């Protein structure tokens, strides 16, 4: 059995036999996948299907459900509260996705150019927010942003006392304040991704650019940024998903308040599922949210897709690099 499977794997890997492996479903290789596939089906596919199904019912999770047709979906698109929540999500996209990518690029660009002693330590520290539990992050920031917190203390001591406010308790500042927390959480991840990308850029390109008299900024835009396209794409996918499904930071700082100024769709998923016991409505919001995330992420992927010519170039780079290290 094992031997057979091995032969098969080799078969897949050998170009000459690829065709055969493609036409015949190799059941033994599926066997290898089976444990993971089973997990995936039980804990991902099945719940998703159940959510989709539940979204067409009125269901309290206890008593038998009644079919609801499309009414749950109609509510999603007509409820002004949900529309406002979606608008808040769009604002958060700037803070959770756009800003972290920009800051990450800036830091990665600087770190790759300047020789920094103890770089590993810096990298680890800057990545730290990503590792911390979001509840811990939320509680810590609640303290930082409080009306008598350190942020306001600093503002008062640099003569900006007039700006000081209860950042999370003020209708106008609560949403951006939550956004800043998200930026802080996400930029470390972006930076690490970009640093990894920069490592694989051919050094000679920089040398050539320098010989041609390019400065740091020119170098960044002409070489670093285009080469990081795949990493930027991944960073955006991760941060956008985080932004659109974010719940824990908001729940642990403002609960959607003051008023409804920081509500997001996932907050309503939680409230409808666990507080109002309207599982059908909660599922409908969740399904719509998933579709939105899927669409936005697909759009980003398409926009940042490598064009065929460029791909060949980057492959060439990697190949030459590989030869050199070997």
């Amino acid at each position, binding site marked *: 059995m094992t031997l057979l499977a091995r032969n098969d794997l080799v078969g897949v890997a050998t170009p000459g036999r*690829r065709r055969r492996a493609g036409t015949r479903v190799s059941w033994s290789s599926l066997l290898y996948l089976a444990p993971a596939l089973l997990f995936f089906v039980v804990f991902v596919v099945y719940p998703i299907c159940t959510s989709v199904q539940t979204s067409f019912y009125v269901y309290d999770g206890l008593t*038998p*459900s009644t079919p609801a047709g499309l009414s749950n979906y109609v509510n999603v698109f007509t409820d002004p509260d949900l529309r406002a929540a979606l608008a808040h999500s769009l604002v958060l996209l700037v803070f959770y996705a756009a800003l972290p990518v920009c800051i990450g690029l800036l830091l990665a660009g600087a770190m790759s150019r300047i020789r920094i002693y103890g770089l590993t330590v810096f990298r680890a520290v800057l990545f730290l927010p990503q590792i911390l539990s979001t509840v811990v992050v939320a509680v810590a920031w609640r303290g930082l942003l409080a009306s008598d917190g350190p942020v306001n203390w600093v503002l008062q001591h640099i003569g900006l006392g007039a700006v000081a406010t*209860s950042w999370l308790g*003020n209708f106008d500042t609560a949403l951006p304040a939550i956004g800043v927390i998200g930026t802080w959480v996400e930029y470390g991840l972006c930076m690490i991704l970009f640093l990894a990308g920069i490592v694989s850029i051919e050094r000679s390109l920089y040398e050539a650019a320098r010989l041609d008299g390019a400065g740091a900024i020119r170098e960044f835009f002409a070489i670093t940024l285009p080469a990081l396209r795949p990493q930027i794409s991944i960073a955006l996918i991760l941060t956008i998903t985080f932004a659109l499904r974010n719940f824990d930071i908001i729940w642990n*700082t403002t609960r959607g308040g003051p*008023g409804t100024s920081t509500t997001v769709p996932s907050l309503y998923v939680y*409230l409808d599922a666990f*507080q109002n*016991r309207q599982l059908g409505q909660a599922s409908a919001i969740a399904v719509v949210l998933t579709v939105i995330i899927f669409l936005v992420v697909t759009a980003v992927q398409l926009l940042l897709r490598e064009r065929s010519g460029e791909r060949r170039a980057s492959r060439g780079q990697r190949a030459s690099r590989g030869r050199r290290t070997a």
Partner: protein
Amino acid sequence: MSHHRALRPLTIAVGAALTALALTSCAAPGSGTAAPASTADTISAKVTPADVAKLGSTTLAVWADQAEQPLMKNFIPAYEKTYPNVKVQVTYKSFDDLLATVVNAAAGASAPDVFEGNIGYAVDGALVKAKLVRPLDDVAKVYGWTTGTGASTLAPARWDAAGTTFGSGTLYGMSPISEVQGIYYNKSKLSALGLKPPTSIADLEKESAAAKSAGEVPMVLGNSDQYAATHIFSDIAVTDEKPAGIRDWIGGKRGTTFETAGNEKAADTLKDWVSKGYFESGYDGLSNEDAIAKFAKGTGVFFVGGSWNGASLNADGFGFGSLASGGVGATASPWHISSKTKKTAAGIAWLDMLHSPQTGQWILDGGRLPVITDGVKAGDSLSEETLNALKETIAAGTQVGYYDWSTTDMLTVMGGALQEVMAGRTSSSDFTKTVQAAWAKGHK
């Protein structure tokens, strides 16, 4: 790359097949849920240790609010001593977590035998509607809960058969803990200002003005969880509104409304207090927990809250002003016996022991208030003041309960809407309209 692409149609096909399989193979959600077997035998005499002993060596699975832990430390050993064949296995949940999970746990295959719910539609209503908790009228009758000091505190755990209104009807739960709202004050600051402990909203308003002009923070409020201000609102509203009317509205009685002059006036009063600076600024960014900690450390003269805040304050520095105009309060989370349990006798014995003067004393010693007030003695002045306030409100019939019981989403709706009025972004009539609309939606 191309290798991946070749695999893609297969992946999609498998995915689609699985999706179709999953969608077609399951029936409508909840269709498999059979109503639990109808209630166990009703009792006509008290459960004795001998009755419980008939269960043999057994384990009683209990779910409790984290806040009960100090009480349970005394209670469980006493229970296990009286009923030696029963071993108690308790699962503690934070209050939020309890509310979010207890109903599903009760509906699950391994439901706890005895557990705490919460008054109102979100938890108890769902439990009653799905017939997950045992009716307790027979128990109340046999043990005499319906007479004596705690009798009126049972009302919020009474439901009509359909689980649509509460406040009267069949009893489904019992809480040994009561709560009363009032005004905590900082003793030394109050005497430095030459003021007397406030006993009414009018007093509070006057003394807050005095405290403000003396440069003190009059009231500490932490409203980021959106519920603290609704308690203050109810303290103010009950000075104008009839307690019975508020109770009816909370209980879901048809034809009642929140859009009253008294409620609008109360919202305007709160707004007025904000604009006069009676609350420390930034209250919407401060959690209730952090606020009481600040007050305990010496910020502010007053903290308008309830007996559940008492555990954070010491009797030397702080006093409790009861609201003679109608101190609001309510019973805390009721205990239920699962309708699925095979250990009903042990469950009834559990409730009986909770509803005793001994347990009442433990509750009071732990900084909370018992339903059984006869035969319990307060250990310090602060708990004596709160206990007296509780007795007064029970006697006066002003325990109206909490607004957020009225619908599953009222805590969020009312809490958020009140934040808007207090910040001056909406009018008090907008506020009452929003609240009433949510109520109407919940009581279709």
